């Protein structure tokens, strides 16, 4: 279970998170929605320790993770996570399979090269890519394929928690649908806890068990996806309908 308690983070004068409180139960899929620049990515990066919050607590299974751990403890912590980055963030100097098997080729999870490659090919197949993609380089792939490889890399070491940062941004609607479905299937089949951030409502409906609406650095509404459409929060309603009229100013 992941819990954020009153998390604040500012970059200079720009107060990005102003008291975010949110909890995600084990094995559920939480989708955080909100406009661009509302701090969704920052919230995820705070949980991973890539960004240190100014104040507040982040608890993973009841243990505060904001105190920076080093060495083996930090490794063990990070080994529980997989993350799909917005642009894929694949390493361009490495081939596709080496990207997917990155964690399996070094560090505490290191295993023989052939075995790592086998796992990589298996994960690639899981996300719908043929084995011959394995030896290509990321620059040779289309946007949709890069997302798939990123997804394969995120699940390669069987993490218990997976983060998806705008998984459908930059994809055509059909590819977006395919990726959404894939994410849903994988999360269910692995029994993983998932947090997805997106502003794509089709992703929300495909992926979410629970939804949280982040605006102005705080969570405006949170609840099961089924109750989202009846939610009484005007911010949430404006976001769902994509209306230009409402409490959210269009110029940010």
């Amino acid at each position, binding site marked *: 279970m992941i819990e954020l308690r009153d998390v604040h983070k500012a970059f200079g004068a720009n107060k990005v998170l102003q008291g975010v409180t949110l909890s995600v139960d084990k094995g559920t899929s939480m989708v955080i929605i909100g406009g661009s620049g509302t701090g969704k990515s920052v919230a995820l990066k705070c949980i991973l320790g890539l960004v240190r919050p100014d104040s507040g607590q982040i608890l993973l299974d009841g243990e505060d993770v904001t105190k920076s751990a080093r060495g083996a403890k930090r490794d063990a912590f990070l080994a529980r996570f997989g993350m799909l980055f917005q642009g894929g963030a694949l*390493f361009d100097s490495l081939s596709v399979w080496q990207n997917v098997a990155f964690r399996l080729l070094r560090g505490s999870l290191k295993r023989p090269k052939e075995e790592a490659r086998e796992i990589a090919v298996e994960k690639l197949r899981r996300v719908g890519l043929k084995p011959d993609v394995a030896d290509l380089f990321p620059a040779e792939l289309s946007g949709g394929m890069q997302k798939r490889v990123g997804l394969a890399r995120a699940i390669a070491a069987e993490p218990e928690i997976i983060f998806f940062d705008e998984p459908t941004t930059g994809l055509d609607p059909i590819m977006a649908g395919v990726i959404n479905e894939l994410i849903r299937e994988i999360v269910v089949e692995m029994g993983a806890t998932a947090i997805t951030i997106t502003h794509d409502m089709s992703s929300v409906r495909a992926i979410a068990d629970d939804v949280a609406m982040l605006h102005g650095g705080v969570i405006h509404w949170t609840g099961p996806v089924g109750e989202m459409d009846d939610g009484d929060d005007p911010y949430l309603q404006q976001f769902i309908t994509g209306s230009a009229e409402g409490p959210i100013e269009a110029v940010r």
Partner: protein
Amino acid sequence: MSPLSPVAAIGRSTLHLLAMIGRVTRYLGETLSHIVRPPLYWREFLAQLMFIGYLSLPVVGLTLVFTGGALALQIYAGGARFNAEAVVPQIVAIGMVRELGPVLTGLMVAGRVSAAIAAEIGTMKVTEQIDALTTLSTNPMKYLTVPRVLAATLAVPALAAVGNVIGVMGGYLVAVTRLGFNPTTYIKNTVDFLEASDIVSSLVKAAAFGFIVALMGCYHGMQSGRGAQGVGRATTNAVVSASVLILAANFVLTGVFFTE
């Protein structure tokens, strides 16, 4: 504009400079602490050794062969003013090995390597690859900075050693073909004149320059701002700061080695 604003501007840039010195120093400390702690990523280290060392050889060789040639011409012309033309081999050797060899090698590598490192790491930062490394339980300092800094510190002395020889060769070719020196005597004079301390100082300098080049490339890459412009600025900063630091370090090291 308030009458005090020039003072404020001076204060601001002073604070800016101090903050930057602090950041670089902290980065330096972090790099050193990661160098002495395992693991070392051998594959990355060897790849960098290849890129920084071997692939820099053509540009370093060309730079030094021409410099050696020009040096021979100048010393001959200058020496002629007081009938000292014969010192060409000795002065070429000492000038090349003590100063020009390591400094020009350092500067050429600064242009080639620190720019490439800053651009690569800067792009990785901008496209979240650095964050991705961390989430994959790999410390970016260990995976990116340490192999580059170690490789440069080892490769640049080797480059400078080869470069010194090529530079002396440049002087030799000009002296023998254009200035009428006897080939055997030229080489004998060069070899007899050089002392072990000349060569040691040359290599120590080159190692320091290699360290500076890679450290500045990595530091500015990691500090890179967003977008193409951010990466461009990081690259420029890396080359400029590496070059200036090399010249400053050269002055200090020359003082350490050669003041009695």
